[in-house]
């Protein structure tokens, strides 16, 4: 009997260990698959595809306080039924998505972020239960462009009116310029209140949400604010993109210096040649220390400078910066 008990114990413990390992293995495979989807989404811009997320709990994390020159501390964590987590590092890829997801149908969308040169692809995860309402009553250019962009990707954006009915089980995101719309959330029924987010666009690309105020740079980043869990997650993912901006800016400015040097050498060698000046006055970005408002001010100033220089050099038939 004693020997039988030992044998039984051996098989039971082996079975349990095997089950736990199999669960971790399955979670690892799923995270790898998701990572591959995100990687391919990140290299092919202006695309969208539909995926079904695993049944297990999936968490996207991003900590803006833990950003270094190598990105921000950010990962995708998939939990096994035992509560064990398998994570994948996404510290350099900007992903705008809800924080928690589970077995949902999700549209992955990728947009190129240019400011003014190409910086990075921005990846968006849009669960099917999210419904975007756009208040285009006042013919605002930003809102019309956002509407067009979503339509191009076959993502339904609904017109917002004051008497709109929100279906059950959806998470409504209302984008407007009218602060009065905020009263919708307070007047909505108790069951809907937590499921309505109102985004009010203010002057100079400032946007206020239920989780705070932030800034956006253009339409792709506005979509980032709308689809992120909260402003902290948005700003953290934007920091990843700005860290990449610093790298690209450094390389492009060095390229311009190299072009200038080589053209001057050729001019002095041949006694004639292209008269390119490559004059600009850019500012360095301290992406890690600065907040997004300061970063936007610097990026806007640099954008104007680079655009002006590009136009000047194009007029002179010189190689352009970007």
């Amino acid at each position, binding site marked *: 009997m004693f*020997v039988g008990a030992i044998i039984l114990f051996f098989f039971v413990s082996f079975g349990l260990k095997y089950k736990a390992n199999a669960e971790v293995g399955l979670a690892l495979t799923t995270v*790898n698959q998701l990572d*591959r989807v995100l*990687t*391919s989404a*990140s*290299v092919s811009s202006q695309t969208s595809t539909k995926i079904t997320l695993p049944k297990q709990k999936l968490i996207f994390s991003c900590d803006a306080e833990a950003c270094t*020159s*190598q*990105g921000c501390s950010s990962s995708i964590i998939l939990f096994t039924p035992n509560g064990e987590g398998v994570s994948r590092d996404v*510290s*350099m890829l900007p992903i705008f998505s809800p924080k928690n997801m589970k077995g949902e149908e999700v549209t992955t969308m990728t947009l190129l972020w*240019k400011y*003014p*040169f*190409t*910086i*990075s692809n921005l990846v968006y995860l849009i669960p099917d239960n999210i419904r975007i309402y756009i208040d285009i009553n006042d013919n605002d250019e930003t809102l019309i462009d956002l509407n067009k962009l979503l339509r191009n990707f076959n993502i339904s954006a609904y017109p917002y009116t004051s008497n709109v009915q929100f279906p059950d089980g959806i998470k409504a995101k209302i984008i407007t310029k009218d602060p009065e719309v905020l009263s919708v959330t307070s007047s909505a029924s108790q069951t809907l209140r937590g499921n309505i987010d109102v985004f009010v666009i203010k002057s100079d690309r400032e946007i206020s949400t239920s989780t705070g105020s932030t800034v956006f740079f253009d339409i792709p980043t506005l979509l980032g604010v709308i689809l992120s869990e909260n402003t902290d997650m948005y700003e953290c993912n934007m920091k990843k993109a700005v*860290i990449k901006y610093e*790298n*690209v800016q*450094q*390389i*492009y400015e*060095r*390229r311009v*210096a*190299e*072009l200038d040097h*080589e*053209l001057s050498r*050729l001019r002095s060698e041949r006694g004639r040649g292209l008269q390119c000046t490559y004059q600009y006055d850019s500012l360095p970005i301290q992406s890690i220390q600065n907040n997004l408002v300061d970063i936007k001010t610097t990026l806007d100033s640099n954008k104007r400078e680079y655009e002006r220089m*590009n136009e000047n050099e*194009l007029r002179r038939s010189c*190689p*352009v910066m*970007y």
Partner: protein
Amino acid sequence: MKKAQLRIGETIITLLIFFILLGMGLIFYVKFKSVSLEQKLQDQDQINTLNIAAQVKFFPEIQCTFLGTEISDCLDKYKIIAFSQLVELNDPNNRLNQYYSSLFPNTLVTVYVISSGDEQVYPLFGRNTTAESKGLDILSIPTAVYDPINDIYEFGYMKIEVFV
């Protein structure tokens, strides 16, 4: 007494045979698992190398652009030169090298440009250390390299070495 001893002996022998068979089964299973795992790891390494190649090829840092629009299958010669100058290989404190090396660990990416019969080598990023690596996956991708000063396209290739 003798019968009982005989029965105990039988049980012990049965158990012994059972455990020997179990042990053999386990050894066979572990061997089979480790072989399939090794194969899986090899496949994973190859997929990883292809992933790196796809990502590097679409880097805006080196891709040809005109007024902000990307030109596919083309690398800009002066972006490659600038990238290569800024990233000092084997300098662990270099910001750009740190960024790209942590994006693609154990990877060395080099661009070769064939210009008027000469081969120019531009190491982009990575650490050239092979001491602790067990193997090497190499992938070379041919590409056009645009020279914006002379407005010509040259032949080049990007070599991706992944240390596993």
